[in-house]
């Protein structure tokens, strides 16, 4: 049977060869591990910390513990604060990069990209050293006689949020920059021509047309925040735990993999719900692919 070129797409060997390898990787590295975690979440441990493979819902019941609820709410608070601050800081900056001409533009862009090349763990440790009671900032302020005793800046929610913002802000700048690049300058001129002040143009034209950038940036900040346990550990010192910390604890010191798995599944569900909500309000999935 002779197959013409046009039948290529819908059947047979070509499709298998191109999609096959990716599918295999997805199955082994994503699907199977996820299934393992899901199964584990319904198991329990014995007194020797061995896993007992017997179906139980006790892990999920334990998640309703008031201590845990406190952590969930704290996570959401921290993630929200981080997201809002990122938007407020990244928006003008992305606008600036998009409007700058040639050479300076690349320079500004690099300012955002270079942090990607450095390990974020090390950078967060850097903040800890910088802000510590014997750290650079306190020493400088004391030397300048602006304070007499070192300020207690670490190990609270505020500093944790600062750390999160520091790590995640490129993820807000990039989609916003992309949105601003697509913004037709003629539209801003037309708006000015028709009687709008700069502020009105911002409200009526710029913000609505960059809304998709804002949305995808928000998703890309909020979700990781919930899991960024290392920032909470290093800068929060236990006072600013997020869901990620709970999970990490169960797998490390707690030795309770089933509980950790249950927490992981919950986090995955929250993530999926948020992405679904994002889609519902019209977010584009392509901009998330950043």
């Amino acid at each position: 049977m002779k197959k013409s070129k046009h039948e290529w797409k819908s059947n047979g060997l070509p499709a298998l060869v191109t999609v096959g390898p990716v599918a295999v990787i997805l199955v082994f590295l994503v699907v199977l591990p996820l299934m393992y975690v899901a199964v584990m979440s319904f198991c329990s441990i014995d007194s020797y910390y061995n896993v007992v493979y017997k179906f139980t819902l006790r892990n999920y019941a334990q998640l309703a513990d008031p201590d845990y609820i406190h952590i969930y709410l704290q996570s959401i608070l921290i993630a929200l604060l981080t997201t809002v601050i990122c938007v407020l800081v990244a928006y003008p900056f992305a606008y600036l990069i998009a409007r700058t001409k040639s050479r300076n533009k690349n320079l500004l862009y690099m300012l955002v990209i270079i942090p990607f090349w450095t390990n974020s763990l090390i950078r967060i440790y850097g903040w800890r050293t910088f802000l510590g009671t014997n750290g650079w900032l306190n020493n400088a302020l004391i030397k300048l006689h602006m304070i007499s005793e070192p300020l207690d800046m670490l190990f609270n929610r505020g500093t944790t949020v600062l750390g999160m913002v520091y790590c995640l802000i490129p993820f807000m700048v990039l989609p916003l920059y992309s949105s601003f690049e697509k913004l037709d300058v003629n539209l801003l001129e037309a708006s000015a021509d028709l009687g709008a002040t700069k502020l009105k143009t911002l409200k009526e034209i710029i913000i609505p047309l960059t809304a998709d950038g804002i949305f995808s940036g928000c998703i890309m900040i909020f979700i990781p925040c919930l899991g960024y346990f290392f920032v909470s550990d290093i800068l929060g010192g236990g006072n600013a735990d997020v869901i990620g910390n709970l999970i990490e604890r169960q797998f490390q010191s707690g030795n309770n993999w089933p509980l950790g798995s249950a927490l992981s599944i919950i986090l995955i569900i929250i993530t999926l719900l948020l992405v679904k909500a994002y889609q519902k309000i019209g977010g584009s999935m392509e901009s998330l692919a950043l």
Partner: protein
Amino acid sequence: MTDIVELKKVNKVFGTNHVVSDLDLSVKEGEFLTLLGSSGCGKTTTLRMVAGFEEPTSGSIMVEGEAVGNKEPFERNVNTVFQSYALFPHMTIYDNIAYGLKMKKVKKSDIAQRVGEMLEMVQLQGYENRYPTQLSGGQKQRVAIARALINRPRVLLLDEPLGALDMKLRKQMQLELKRLQKKLNITFIYVTHDQEEAMTMSDRIGIMHDGILDQLGTPSEIYEHPATRFVATFIGETNIFDGAIHRIDKSIASVDIENGLISGQSDGSFDVGEYIAVSVRPEKMKLSKAPVEGFSLEGVVKDFIYIGSVMKCIVALQNGNEIRMERLAGEVLPGIGEKVYPYWDAQSAVLIHTKADTVFKTIENAPLAV
């Protein structure tokens, strides 16, 4: 008629690029003025300076008698129709058109009434709730015009608004725009590179070239009496002869060119010995079977081009240059290969001052090293 827009010695420099040079332009109230020229001649930049999107490097711009200098676009009583329409994609047609009024905080009921009037004027009733992406090019065009005119500006600036439309629609829109302008009695300043469009619609045309305004005049003034070599060759077709004035007899000048002598009409501003160009439109060109007094041009008919309503005839002269003659199809013309003697009525030839004169005179008068 007063001058509603006045540009005095306006210059605009972008980096090292001198885009507009010493521009003096006065636009009369109620007129349809077109700035015509090829890409990069400075016409769009000039328009943008009047609109307020660019600030002149030097010189002054007055609108309605007030110096606008660095006034924001929304502080001037002018509105712009952009080449790309620049309709707000996230707003309905209604909101697009109403935008200007909304910014002026006009009452909602008044807005509704005026938007309705505009839609009727541009014949887009019923399109209020559609979005720009759902409209065709011509429809977007009309929304852009409505959006600008609803603010009742004294001057409407149009930046090549018909550039993206197909030929038939363009011709239709040209007539509509002209009719609209006459009806509303608003001053239109129009920018285009299409000379036919400019000739059809304008009361006056300003031809721009390399940032300089070469000539400002009515379409017929520009066509019949081009002031510069560029204007002569840019508008329509013409035959150009370069030479020096040999003799002036009353108002007829005899000009020395490479092929001999020709005649043209002087307006009195020409001197004997001046280096000039002579422009003769193809439709004014005549061919004779025998030599004509005052003209020593000789040529051989080389080719014919049939355009339907006219026939163009190409004649090769002694020195190899070609000239074009145009006649209505149907007239008797010499055959290919025939020897002819081109001539014309002296009044039909236009003498043009050229820069060559300055160059040659400078060379002539330059002192020789002793």
